[in-house]
Each structure stands twice: as structure tokens, then as C-alpha cells.
């Protein structure tokens, strides 16, 4: 059975930290600040809507594009929240999380050899998905610019083969976000070179210090934007797998073509629950956001106090702290911390180049957990001196 696996997949880089993840998953009573999802359970009224839809016998396929009432609900939400209007019939598609939306966008847009710019550190799937779609990821290291993409640096990476960029804000793993003014600068350059912006705004509702700006709401940007978002983080609905893609008619039609053959449609139960989230879930979103914000203040203060320096993230629920003072690499730090103090943290190296001095700390965890974890990390650091 030689060469049973396709060359493309064989050539995909296996994640360097898979073994570390397995180690964590095999251990008991670990305090984890390594989780990339909310610690809240989906608000009850949303869960109840899912259960009710099952009771009512909603167990069939939906339209490939997704339930019309969900698309209509999203159309209204985006209009009132960001002043952006997408036609529910032609410019919207309900996807299996943002992950599927990203995959579809890349597959719909890329020809072999096309390049996609990816500011790093970034979420783990951007590079591999680009490669699978036949494209070539071009990573832009932002570690020297406070993990923000600077317009000048962006422009330097653009050449004839570059088709677009994947922009994620607030960002996983850094929590960095952009103000409207900063985004305007980025937009100008993208438009100047006729590039597509695939924007992942899944953490939009968790923006703490200023109003989140939807990229498509920037003047003139909509025609060059594939806007991806989902219900996972805002409504604590990660396991339901509901996301959505909005964009120019032509691109959404191409994405829908792939989606109809590969996925057909998002599970109807999840779509029904998502409808309820839009109807009744906004209050829960605000409550959870306030809670995250308090934890952010707590964890950033404490991390800096014990010598894990990090600047204050503007969104999401991650702190990206540097280990420079400890003299340890991120993998070494995470492995030893796990073994000695049973605290799980994700090494920065999971998220791209030039991150071996960093760790990602998720504060999607109860205050009791955060306190206990900080106290263990403090002990760990003292023992290392």
C-alpha cells in the first residue's frame, strides 16, 4: 500500500504540538488555560429552541444556503449592528462554522500558485487550508509591530501573484484588534492592488476597548470582502457548528457551489437554535462580554505581576504573554508547567514563526480557575529561579 495518501496531504505540515495536546488530554485534574472556546454553556433559551425544533420534527435538509429565516435574521442584525446590508438570497451562505466558510472562500478564489497573505501569529488553519486549496500562504510576521499588521509592511509583501489576505480581528491567539482608522489604512492598500480580504470576525462581539468595525462597512470595501463570522464565540455555541459567509454575489455563488456538493447544508437543529440566538441571545452576549472583560483585567494584571509580560488585548479571550524573562522556550515552559503544576497552556509556536518566546493564555475560564492557575504558575516560576 505505497503512496496511498495524496501528495498534497502528505506534504501538509503536521502540527508540531499535537503530541503536547495528547499529553494534556491524557492527564487528569489539569487546570486548563488552553481552551479556545467559551467556558459558558449555550444560553438555555437557545438550547431550548434546538430541543423544541427536534420535538416539532424539524429533522430534514434545509436549502443549501441555509434557512431563509436565519439569513433574514442575519441580514437585519448586520444592518442594525454595522450598517452593512447583504442580500439574504444572493450574498449570504450559512456554513459549518467559520472553518467551512474559510475553506470555501479559499477554494472558490484560488488558482494553483495564487498567493494569500496571512499575518502571523494566526489561527492554525489559515496556512494549511490555503495550501489544500492550491494556494501559497505568504506569512507576514507582525511580532515586531505589537502583533498588528502595519500598512507599510503589508504593501511590501504584495506582488502580482497575491490574490488576497486573511485578516482576523479580534485575533486568536493575540487578542489584537484594529480601530476603524487602522482598518481604513489597510483597506486603502488592499483596494489599490485589487486584493480580496477574507475577514474572520468571529470574536467581534468580544471587543472591549472600542467599537468593533466590520471590514465590509468600510467605504468601498464590500465588493472586495468575504466576511466570515459565526455563532461559536458570541453565543457560546462552538459545538453547534454554525457560521456564515457574506460577500459579493459572484463569490458567494461559487462558494455555494462547493458547499452544496461537500456539505449540503448545516444541520437544521443548529440553524434553528441560531435563529433563536439572534432573537433572544443578545442579552446573554452582553453579560458574557462583561464577565470576560473583568477576567481580562484580572489576568493581564496578574500575568504582568508575576513576570509574564503581556500588553492588554483588545478583544477575544486570549492573552499572548512573552517568556523572555524566564529564559525558557514556549514548548519547554508549557511541558514543564504541565508536568510540575498541572496547568495547561498552549505554546505560541502553534501559531506561526517567531513565537517561540510566547504562550497563549485563554481566560475563558472561571475566576477561581484563573486564580488557582496564576498561583501555580507563580510557584513554578519561583522554583525555576
Amino acid at each position: 500500500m505505497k503512496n496511498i495518501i495524496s501528495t498534497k496531504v502528505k506534504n501538509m505540515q503536521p502540527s508540531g504540538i499535537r503530541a503536547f495536546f495528547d499529553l494534556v488530554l491524557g492527564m487528569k485534574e489539569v487546570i486548563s488555560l488552553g481552551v479556545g472556546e467559551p467556558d459558558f454553556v449555550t444560553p438555555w433559551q437557545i438550547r431550548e429552541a434546538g430541543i423544541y425544533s427536534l420535538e416539532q420534527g424539524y429533522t430534514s435538509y434545509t436549502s443549501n444556503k441555509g434557512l431563509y429565516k436565519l439569513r433574514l435574521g442575519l441580514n437585519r442584525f448586520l444592518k442594525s449592528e454595522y450598517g452593512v446590508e447583504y442580500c439574504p438570497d444572493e450574498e449570504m451562505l450559512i456554513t459549518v462554522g467559520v472553518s467551512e466558510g474559510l475553506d470555501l472562500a479559499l477554494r472558490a478564489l484560488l488558482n494553483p500558485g495564487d498567493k494569500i497573505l496571512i499575518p502571523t501569529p494566526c489561527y492554525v488553519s489559515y496556512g494549511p487550508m490555503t495550501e489544500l486549496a492550491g494556494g501559497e500562504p505568504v506569512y507576514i510576521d507582525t511580532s515586531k509591530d505589537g502583533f498588528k499588521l502595519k500598512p507599510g509592511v503589508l504593501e511590501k509583501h504584495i506582488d502580482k501573484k497575491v490574490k488576497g489576505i486573511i485578516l482576523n480581528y479580534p485575533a486568536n491567539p493575540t487578542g489584537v484588534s484594529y480601530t476603524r482608522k487602522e482598518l481604513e489604512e489597510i483597506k486603502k492598500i488592499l483596494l489599490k492592488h485589487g486584493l480580496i480580504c477574507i475577514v474572520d470576525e468571529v470574536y467581534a462581539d468580544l471587543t472591549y476597548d472600542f467599537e468593533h468595525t466590520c471590514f465590509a462597512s468600510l467605504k468601498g470595501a464590500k465588493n472586495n470582502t468575504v466576511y466570515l463570522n459565526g455563532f461559536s464565540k458570541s453565543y457560546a455555541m462552538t459545538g453547534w457548528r454554525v457560521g456564515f459567509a457574506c460577500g459579493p454575489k459572484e463569490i458567494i455563488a461559487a462558494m455555494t457551489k462547493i458547499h452544496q456538493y461537500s456539505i449540503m447544508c448545516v444541520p437544521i437543529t443548529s440553524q434553528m437554535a441560531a435563529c433563536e440566538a439572534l432573537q433572544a441571545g443578545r442579552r446573554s452576549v452582553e453579560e458574557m462580554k462583561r464577565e470576560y472583560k473583568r477576567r481580562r483585567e484580572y489576568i493581564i494584571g496578574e500575568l504582568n505581576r508575576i513576570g509574564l509580560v503581556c500588553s492588554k488585548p483588545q478583544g477575544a479571550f486570549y492573552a499572548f504573554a512573552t517568556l523572555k524573562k524566564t529564559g525558557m522556550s514556549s514548548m519547554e515552559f508549557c511541558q514543564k508547567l504541565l508536568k510540575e503544576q498541572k496547568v495547561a497552556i498552549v505554546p505560541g509556536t502553534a501559531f506561526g514563526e517567531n513565537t517561540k518566546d510566547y504562550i497563549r493564555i485563554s481566560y475563558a475560564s472561571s475566576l477561581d480557575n484563573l486564580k488557582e492557575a496564576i498561583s501555580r504558575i507563580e510557584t513554578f516560576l519561583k522554583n525555576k529561579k
Partner: protein
Amino acid sequence: MDEILEILEKDGCATAQDIAKMLKKKPENIKQAIKKYEKEGVILGYKAMINKELIKDAGSRVRALIEVNITPQKDLGFEKIAERIYSFPEVTSCYLISGTYDLLLIVEGKDLHSVAGFVSEKLAPLENIRGTATHFLLKKYKEDGVVLKHREENKRIAISY
């Protein structure tokens, strides 16, 4: 509502230090604010929520919801009579409600007889009381926003991107 109160309402044990860290304020200021709330009676007290069903020697207590119909007094309305009623130590909660009845009480006693005795000997004979309806509680599922069951296990996987 002030975030200090929001935090304390969820966790009465939260210290001024912790709250200060969460709200990025000075601990002294938080202490002062809490003192002020206590003095003004906004914060009335702190206590643990205990699930007595799990304690063997807690002694079984019986609770009843009692609806009370009263004739309001001239000039005083329901206030005076409510005060007479809620002053009994057996009455753990007392509400003025709309609908068929006027007051809703939660009454606690060591057994069925003592609650029944309280109703027939203390409550019903009071002046201005026109009638009562007693409902004994059989099981507690949720109280003040807290579901009375064991802490649930964490269902998230321990590490993810």
C-alpha cells in the same frame, strides 16, 4: 447596576483585592464602595447557600408557601399588617403580590404540625386576615438562581486552538 454589586451578587466571597483587579481600580476604593453599600443597606449581608438535602444531621425542616388575604387598614394600607406578620421568626420571606391574594409568605418549621400550628394559632387569628391557603413544599429544584444539584463535570476538552 454597579459592577461591584454584579460581582458580589454572584460571589459574596470575592475580596476587595480581586474585585479591584477585575475592574482595574484601587482596592481601597472598592473597600470604601462596599462599606458604603453596606451602610446604605444596599448590601444587606453575606451568606453561604447550603443544600441541606445533602446534610445528614441538618434536621428536616418543613417549608410552606402561604397565601394570605388581608383587609388593608385605613391610611396604612398593607404595611402595618405585613410588619406584624413578617416579624414572626417562622416567616423567612414575605411579599406583597398581585392577584387573588395579597401577601405571599414562606414559612419554615421543624415539621408539618409546627407549620400548621403557626398558621392556625398565630397567623389566622390576626385581625384583618380574611383567609389563608397553605402549600407545603415537597422538593427544591432551584433557588435564587442556583440549581440544587451536584456541580457538573467540565464538558470542554482540556486544550484546543
